[in-house]
């Protein structure tokens, strides 16, 4: 099960944080700070998996953003690495060459996309096309 997903930049600003476990506000800030510290200092040659408290964090760096997913110890790390990549591809497709600013100004859309991709800490849909189509339908509803 996914416990939380985080997008952070090099300076430690959290661009997206979705929690699937209940946490107090102060705890959330602490977690964000710790994960950032863990992830930002790691050598790129090292593995993409870090132990974090009693779980593990699988992270990947895309340009200036760190995508981190915290999962249970028993989960398949390589699968979640693929999961991160799929998410980035979806964002890229949706925003056409996504950059950090897109994520900042359209944060509510990013959350929507995430909610179509992952729900209750588990994978919801594996097809990029299906998710983007669904987002299109939702946009139409907005009007």
């Amino acid at each position: 099960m996914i416990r939380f997903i985080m997008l952070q930049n090099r300076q430690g600003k959290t661009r997206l944080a979705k929690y699937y476990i209940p946490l107090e506000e102060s705890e959330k800030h602490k977690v964000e700070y710790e994960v950032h510290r863990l992830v930002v200092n790691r050598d790129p040659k090292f593995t993409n998996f870090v132990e974090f408290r009693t779980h593990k964090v699988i992270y990947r760096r895309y340009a200036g953003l760190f995508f981190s997913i915290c999962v249970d110890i028993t989960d398949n790390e390589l699968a979640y690495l693929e999961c991160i990549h799929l998410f980035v591809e979806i964002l890229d497709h949706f925003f056409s060459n996504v950059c950090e600013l897109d994520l900042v100004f359209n944060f509510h859309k990013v959350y929507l996309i995430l909610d179509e991709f992952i729900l209750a800490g588990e994978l919801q849909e594996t097809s990029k096309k299906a998710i983007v189509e669904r987002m299109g339908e939702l946009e139409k509803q907005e009007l």
Partner: protein
Amino acid sequence: MVHCRDMIRAIRACKTAAEERAVVRKESAAIRAAVSENDQDYSHRNLAKLMFIHMLGYPTHFGQMECLKLIASAGFPEKRIGYLGLMLLLDERQEVLMLVTNSLKQDLNHSNQYIVGLALCALGNICSAEMARDLAPEVERLLQFRDPNIRKKAALCSIRIIRKVPELAENFTSRAAALLSEKHHGVLITGVQLCTDLCKVSTEALEYFRKYTEGLVKTLKDVGNSSYSPEYDIAGITDPFLHIRLLRLLRVLGQGDIDASDCMNDILAQVATKTESNKNAGNAILYECVETIMSIEDNGGLRVLAINILGRFLSNRDNNIRYVALNMLMKAITVDAQAVQRHRATILECVKDSDASIRKRALDLVFLLVNDNNVKSLTKELIEYLEVSEQEFKGDLTAKICSIVEKFSPEKIWYIDQMLKVLSEAGNLVKDEVWHALIVVISNASDLHGYTVRSLYRAFQKSGEQESLVRVAVWCIGEYGEMLVNNVQMLDIEEPMTVTEFDAVDVIEIVIKRHSSDITTRAMSLIALLKLSSRFPSCSHPAEEDVKSNSQVTRPLQKISKEPDPSIISGSSRDLGGSSRVVGAEDGHHLGCTQSPGDGLLALHRKVIKKKRKRQKKNQLWAVRRRNQKLWKREISIEGDLQPPNQPTPVEGLHHLISPALRLSPSLEIPFEVHVEWVGDEFSDMLNKKVYAEAHPPSQSLGSLIGGPKFPRACSSGAFFPPIRA
């Protein structure tokens, strides 16, 4: 009312944190005003702004009711932003959440399926146990909705419900099973996940789903053999996520059940052999496959296949793959240790990797792999690596090597050799228990004393900066000095070496005089000198000089005597001059100590000399009685006929100072030995004066001093005793 975009721009334009706080405060105030005025027009925009402010880390409690109001409105856009705000600003532990239950219920039954989707999403992400109980029937019903998007959301929502309220699991079982035959990938994958969770939560569900094993195997086969589908293709594999989820469900079903395990053997073999492993997706599937094979009931062929895959992973250049392989191998060892042994060489290579987490995993694995057959070669490799490894890793590595050597050493000489190598390389990182244990082993290996002391002498020449090595070396030279000098107990493998007495004493001198030696080392060196001074008569004068030379020795001595350091033991099993040495321990002012229980070196010495206690005690009693008879002077030197039988002649030039307190002993049953043996005159004078003064406080009868606190009792082991304070 400022647009959300503009607010974000304004915040980003702030140069300092104070500016940003000011902007945020202004906006928050505006939003609060709008909320209290119940302003409907901009509530959508306001909540978006509020969410952004929340993401920056500012408090936003006043926005929670806004969310509820928006959720209760009729239109899709308002509901959407309301639910989004709900998921961001609240969590299941807050009571406000309960107020949403009614809205959720209505939305779950809405005609607009997008709104149903919104409700399911919110429910699945943050519902509490009570809400789960209330809304479970709705979600169950939605599992059979016509739209696949709703079905898959309902499936995941159900996962959350059964995690919160496991008792509801049986309600979902039959409908979940129906999902397993879906064609739509999204619904299928969520259905599989739901079934996996149901099996974890309830054993009836597990039994129920075992019937579906064949169906699942077929589904996996179909997915594996399916033609190219651009929608689900990742690196040439169709929907690797589905593969992985199916494998996981099969694992849960096959565990502990032979029939189910048999059923899936073929497909597992197929996946293991046909999946391409040049991309991460393929490796992820292989990893899951290997995990499944390891967990289900035994099938020899499959296990071998799995371990071979892991072996291949180990030689992959990608660090992630190697890490994952090492993890898996640690689990595989419990299942099939033999097969893992075959990959020992590769694992040893991983110990030398540049990535710290891989090194650590590999080292743990090597530790599990050690057995009596391979311990020698493994240790050899590890010690070779120790020489070139990085500083942070050395500590771990040293500890592991020491525990391997201790557990598995086939013979004492090998143990001593390996430990010497380790100490020469990383003596400073070795824990105290380790070199204590080494000393115990050395002393018990009586036929190896000569070999050991000579090896230590050589090792000291090469790596004299390693503290633990120096301590062990000093102790051994002190104990077995004459073996070193006279080349006693030469083994065939040794080269002859000439070491004179002066060389041996030199070694100890160097240690004492070195600035980097700490208190324990110096104390041990002093004790070694004491021992040697009786064994090497020709050296006793230089030894005296040594000890006499103030600044370097007496200062540390005085320092030592002030410290309650139990590691200072003046006596040992070999008596100097034939009588036991006990120094009166007037706290702090003598060379003494307070005995603390369980202290390493003290206990060690006790062990070492336990055997000789009886003989010593007999000699001691004899010596004391004789001495006591002659004791009415202040200073007495032990000569000639005072020697107990079978003891070597005391060395001339050593002054034996026996304190007047000994005069008290005739009336006591326990021999009372409070004499200081020292080679330095000034020191002994000083000591003596003190002892005399304390032994004879003005107008105090001898009788009142009996059993008094100041004079410790002798012990045949020759160790120090605490001052017995009443």
